[in-house]
């Protein structure tokens, strides 16, 4: 395709910006400004208000919630530049993207890559319209860090598979319509015996039990499959290709959890500002408790060098045209710092920072307690810190495999 002269690009971007603004003026209800997208979260049922539903439908109809996905499957068919314009214009009026969740973040991109035409036509458009919630059937009681050890088994019954087994940590399983799962179709080969298939959560034999976490919430479930019939057309890729497809999906997961969320947490309110509210300060504004002051400074210096490292990883990756090797440290360092920060908040607030419920505690205090507890998961999921260390040692430092 011939490159357009710069002025033409500018003109078409301006035209598109106007189109987005007109769309927002016509469809975005002011009362939703500044609110978030429930569908993107995992910790609540889908109770859309009629206003929220209308907004979702308006965005979904244009495919603007998944702007760069192909138009023929319900995406926006737009360029990255146009997607940025949408993001920018939405943010300006406080509009959230009502399309989200695991279907958008992980499953959709993977199916677009590995699915057949019929599967893409069936499953991608409802994701683009935000009509279907997907959950992930990966971990099992005996397959956590050693995921390929999974034992849920699918027996070939001609036109369908019969699936038996148990999945765990199924995020949002109690609210999901469908599950993308990796299951065993062959016991003779650990990795090549795995297949990727799609299971209806309301199929007979599927049972979901929410797990109450130490934070008091139940965002994860145990999912049991007892003689669940899965039609052959729900196999993605070939039988035995599941490990390859499943790992590709995990890359999409890591891209999504390594970026914004964790860094945003680190940029939250300065610990020193919180400390000044809860602890004594001298005339010069310095914290009187010198030991606590030292701990806060120590933490903030290290979190600064982490943020600088995250930025450097992006710059290096851009300059090299490949992933920079220091990207490998971001997950383990960032999650550790976030946990340290939560612990320091408790030290700063004392017992007032350990409230479970009640009006005597502020919303921020209660949220930080739940965040502290739930944050313990961050060094476990998405490849535990120990797995990250193995990856750094073997793939980056070239230390040989331990046996």
């Amino acid at each position, binding site marked *: 395709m011939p490159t357009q002269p710069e002025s033409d690009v500018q003109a078409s971007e301006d035209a598109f910006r106007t189109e987005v603004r007109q769309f927002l003026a016509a469809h975005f209800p002011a009362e939703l400004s500044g609110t978030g997208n429930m569908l993107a979260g995992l910790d609540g049922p889908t109770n859309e208000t009629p206003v929220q539903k209308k907004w979702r439908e308006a965005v979904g109809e244009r495919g603007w919630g998944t702007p760069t996905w192909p138009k023929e499957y319900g995406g926006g068919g737009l360029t990255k530049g146009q997607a940025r314009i949408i993001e920018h214009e939405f943010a300006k009026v406080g509009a959230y993207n009502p399309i989200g969740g695991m279907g958008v973040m992980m499953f959709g991109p993977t199916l677009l890559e590995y699915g057949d035409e019929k599967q893409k036509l069936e499953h991608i458009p409802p994701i683009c319209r935000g009509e279907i919630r997907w959950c992930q059937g990966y971990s099992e009681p005996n397959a956590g860090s050693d995921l390929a050890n999974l034992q849920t088994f699918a027996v070939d019954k001609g036109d369908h598979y019969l699936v038996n087994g148990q999945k765990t940590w199924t995020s949002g399983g109690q609210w999901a319509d469908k599950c993308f799962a990796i299951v065993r179709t062959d016991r003779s080969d650990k990795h090549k015996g795995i297949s990727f298939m799609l299971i209806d959560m309301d199929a007979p034999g599927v049972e979901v039990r929410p797990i109450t976490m130490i934070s008091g919430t139940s965002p994860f479930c145990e999912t049991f499959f007892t003689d669940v019939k899965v039609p052959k057309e729900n196999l993605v890729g070939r039988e035995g290709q599941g490990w390859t497809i499943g790992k590709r999906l995990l890359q999409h997961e890591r891209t999504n959890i390594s970026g914004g969320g964790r860094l945003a947490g680190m940029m939250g309110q300065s610990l020193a500002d919180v400390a000044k509210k809860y602890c004594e300060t001298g005339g010069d504004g310095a914290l009187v408790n010198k030991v606590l002051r030292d701990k806060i400074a120590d933490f903030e210096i290290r979190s600064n060098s*982490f943020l600088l490292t995250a930025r450097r990883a992006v*710059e290096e990756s851009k300059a090299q045209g490949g992933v920079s090797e220091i990207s490998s440290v971001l997950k383990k360092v960032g999650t550790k710092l976030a946990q340290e920060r939560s612990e320091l908040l408790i030290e700063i607030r004392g017992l007032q920072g350990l409230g479970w419920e009640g009006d005597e505690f502020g919303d921020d205090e209660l949220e930080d307690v739940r965040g502290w507890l739930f944050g313990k998961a961050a060094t476990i999921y998405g490849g535990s810190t120990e797995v990250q260390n193995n990856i750094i040692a073997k793939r980056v430092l070239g230390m040989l495999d331990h046996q």
Partner: protein
Amino acid sequence: MAVLSEEQEMLRDMARDWATKESPVSEFRKVRASGEPHAYNSSAYAAMAEMGWAGIIIPEAHGGSDFGFMSAGLVVEELGKTLTASPLVTTTIAAGAILLGGSDEQKAKWLPRLASGETVATLAVDEGAHCDPAAIATSVSGGKLTGRKAFVHEAHGANLFVVAAKDGLYLVEKGDGVSLTTRKLTDQRSHADVSFAGAAAEKLEGGSDSLLDDVLDRARVLSAAEMLGMAQAVFDTTLDYLKQRVQFNQVLATFQALQHRMADLFADLAQMRSAVEAGLQAVDSGFGVARAATIAKAEANRVLHAISNQGIQLHGGIGMTDEFNVGFYLKRARVLEASWGSSSYLKDRFAQLSGY
């Protein structure tokens, strides 16, 4: 590694090549064996100046290349890798002080001499064993400076001192009224207590109210660059050693306990490099220098401390021998950690800068 310009890459490659070929750690051993108090090879420093390294932050009009602190840091890092003994860091810091506070005449007089290597310079601030710019008793009266400075780096080779007095920074030439008492420190480099007894002094009148802190911040980022090179060298050497050493019929690198420790150090080193490069870049941009320099040196202190200790531990008994280089890095590490701000000093400074 920050994304570098073509000139910076060439400069770094040149420094790496020279340090590896002309100034490996065996050269430092020769300096140590010579027992000379100035503790560097003069012809090696002349060669460095010849290559333009003493003038990297000095404007072209004064005989330098005006490449800035980030570029100077690249060279200093490469020299730190091989523990090259030279007054390059202190001379560059002094040039930085003159650039910030010197008059046009002072700049025209001194900067070309510093750039050419003809004049070696250093910074004399502290009067005790700790970094404490608030506790200065040195005073000047009628152009004569009197006071005693402790543990001055590169004092033996220096013929120009940038001296902190109560009312500001002064330039003092070696000569009448200047006397040295050698203080042999564990790094076997040049350190001395310097007494100034009515020595002729010329004030650096320019610069901001915080000129001394601004100069110390430059000392911090350049020392941090040297420390970065040292940390990288110890890490690389240790990793190589773990890949060769066999115990229990296994290469040590295959033990998971050691793999995870190296993964931790690798992450620390990544943070150190980010902080040091950001500190150097902040000096060049002039934006947020105090904070960035404090973070740079604090992270350099933290990470080099850990890596120099683990370098010995992971080498095992052989790391304890004088024959092996890793011990030299440990000894130099502690001297640099204690200079221009220890970890506790820098954390205190960071909290002050942040208003708590």
